């Protein structure tokens, strides 16, 4: 594949500050055994991209731990493979540290990495979206139409002025040429094309964008680079049809996690043999169900011990559900331990949370109750 991938691990971290307090957006746990970056990385790897730069900014320990050498994605390579691109700050100039907050800022920072790549195309991706996209087909469209930049979009219905799940809307003409970029907040209800924040571009186009950003102080890749230059270059959309969600709040995180209980959505994300979602493989034993356990409509990772009742929940690795305990509409992250006779409804627990015997905790679908890492209730 004549393309390199660039993944932005830290953009929009403030939107789910509960989960990104001690980690990057990329390493937010999702769907029992994944981290958000797995979707962006797998999309690239499944398209045959074997050279990927991972731009990091703050708190990327958990991300480095997850990625390791990249072997779980077949990216531990002598040539290419995955490269971590941490902030470039010299002893002489560390005054401005805005490099991680926008695409352009981050790209300026990794100019040397880009210059050193021989590939003709660049794929840029954020980590706050969940989708399984045929990136190879998107790159082929980009090449065959001779585009300069192609944005992946999905047609969605935006209600309530877009306050529910806020997205970036891309307007285009009947030929798929981009005509406008807007935020969904404040737009009238109706169908619109939401950006997947996944972009294929010619490397020359990106190099030019970096020059413009440096020269004019541009900060917004969409509005400053694409929109200002749309008449001089070929900027198009690529339509994606399957499941897609952007996580812009803890509520989004909750509802998107619960989406995984829908068999159609699971099929669209995980059901394709040719495009598996790859992740770090841990050595957990299979999950055990003891006599008397009741489980309904739930997704459960390996390494769990289920003694109580679990309904409509997402259970991560190594979770223990005690006897006579009920877990309903919950997301219990790695190694959460609940004692006996507890009751949990609409609760999100971070890693290593301990819920002692007999505790009763409840949030609501519109306001899940969040429990911080290592907390003991």
């Amino acid at each position, binding site marked *: 594949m004549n393309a390199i991938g660039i993944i932005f691990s830290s953009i929009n971290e403030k939107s789910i500050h509960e989960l990104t307090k001690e980690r990057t957006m990329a390493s937010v746990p999702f*769907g*029992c*055994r994944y981290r958000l970056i797995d979707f962006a990385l797998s999309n690239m790897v499944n398209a045959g991209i074997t050279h990927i730069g991972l731009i990091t900014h703050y708190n990327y320990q958990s991300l480095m731990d997850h990625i390791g050498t990249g*072997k*779980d994605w077949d990216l531990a390579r002598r040539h290419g493979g995955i490269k971590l691109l941490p902030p470039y700050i010299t002893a002489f100039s560390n005054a401005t540290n805005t490099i991680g907050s926008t695409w352009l800022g981050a790209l300026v920072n990794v100019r040397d990495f880009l210059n050193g790549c021989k590939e003709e195309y660049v794929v840029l991706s954020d980590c706050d979206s969940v989708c399984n996209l045929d990136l190879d087909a998107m790159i082929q469209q980009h090449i065959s139409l001779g585009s300069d930049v192609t944005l992946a979009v999905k047609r969605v219905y935006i209600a309530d002025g877009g306050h529910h799940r806020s997205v970036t809307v891309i307007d285009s003409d009947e030929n798929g040429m981009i005509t406008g970029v807007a935020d969904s907040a404040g737009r009238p209800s109706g169908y619109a094309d939401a950006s997947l924040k996944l972009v294929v571009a010619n490397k020359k186009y990106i190099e030019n964008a970096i020059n413009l950003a440096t020269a004019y102080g541009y900060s917004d890749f969409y509005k400053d680079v694409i929109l200002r230059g749309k008449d001089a270059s070929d900027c198009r959309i690529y339509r994606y049809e399957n499941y897609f969600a952007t996580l812009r709040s803890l509520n989004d995180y909750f509802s998107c996690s619960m989406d995984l*209980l829908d*068999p159609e959505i*699971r099929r669209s*994300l*995980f059901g394709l043999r040719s495009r*598996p*979602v*790859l*992740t770090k*493989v841990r*050595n957990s*034993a*299979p*999950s*055990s*169900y*003891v*006599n*008397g*356990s*009741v*489980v*309904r*409509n*739930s*997704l*459960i*990772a*390996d*390494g769990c011990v289920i*003694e109580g009742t*679990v309904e409509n929940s997402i*259970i991560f690795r190594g979770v223990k559900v005690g006897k006579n305990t009920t877990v309903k509409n919950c997301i219990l992250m790695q190694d959460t331990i609940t004692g006996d006779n507890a009751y949990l409804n609409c609760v999100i627990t971070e890693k290593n949370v301990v819920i002692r015997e007999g505790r009763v905790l409840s949030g609501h679908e519109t306001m899940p109750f969040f429990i911080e890492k290592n907390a003991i209730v």
Partner: protein
Amino acid sequence: MIKKKETVAMLLAGGQGSRLHLLTERTAKPAVTFGGKYRIIDFPLSNCINSGIDTVGVLTQYQPLALNEYIGNGQPWDLDRTYGGVTLLPPYQMNKRADWYKGTANAIYQNLQFIDKFDPDYVVILSGDHIYKMDYHDMVEAHRRTGADCTIAVFEVPLSEASRFGIMTLDGDMRVTEFTEKPAQPKSTMASMGVYVFSRDKLAKYLEADEADETSQKDFGKNVIPAMLAAGEKLYAYKFNGYWKDVGTIQSLWESNMDLLGERPVLTLRDLNWRISSRNEAMPPHYVGYEATINNSIVTEGCEIYGTVENSVLSAGVIVERGAVVRDSVIFGNVTVKSDSEINYSLIDSGTVIGKSATVGKEMALAKGITLVGGGLTVPDGATVPDRAICGADMIKELAKGV
């Protein structure tokens, strides 16, 4: 220049395991699925790395494809090393002759060069057909302490079963005075586990002597150990007290899987101080549907359960459709159990489809024995596979005619 390794392990993984019937038709016994997401060979390999042994030669011969693919570069066990690590050792063609491995001793003899490369003091000989968690380092230490030439791991078995094993008679210091392979009248209940520690020089000496002896069957238990005893070498036993199970038969393989179940399983894979590692794909978490019932079972990645699962072990990617019942059974990877079918007291090999409303096996209390269904087959809708049957492609054809 290769660094010296104090201990090198040699893992005999070439056996056919013919008593596992259909399960080993296309794969070597060590590559047979166990406990949902493991293979039998994961146990000795994980034991090696947990014991601090990072140089392992795996001797393969029978149907090595699945095994070679599974072991690969040894990465899942942290055995992908620049110095040492795991090396697959198939039989090879020599300058003057080419030979298959003719016995356990001959297999090691043909690979003495591999051992020499690492200049080890001790060689641990293992076999790939037992389920156990054992610290080989502890055994090597015992070997060093006693100054033995060979130390044999022993496990106490009931007297009634002793005639199935190699039985040792010991003196008060655990020194071996007599060794009999499968004795009709066992004198002791100390059975050899097929785990040996040899001092390297003695190993080389006796393997060469054994090779020169044309009447020898080239077997450790039958030839090498008795020869060493006869020559008055120091052979000691090392008693192992943990879980150990020979999974050479369908019955014992099923039993060992069942030992993983229960609130306090006889065999646990959750011990973080003695992890058993395995190679597995990144499959999605398992899904449990609205009408599912799961009791006393273990379930792993990629499974989708809509029916009933009781006292069973399910491997990755198993689908149990609505109304289907799986009871007292071991199901290998990617098996689909179609709606309203029933599986009792059975072992189903990977990739098989159990048709709608089909019946496999009989309730455990009433059955004559375990039912075995081979891999990659399709049991027709509504068909009945009787208890204690060994159901391969031929039987499927018969069943298809009958329906």
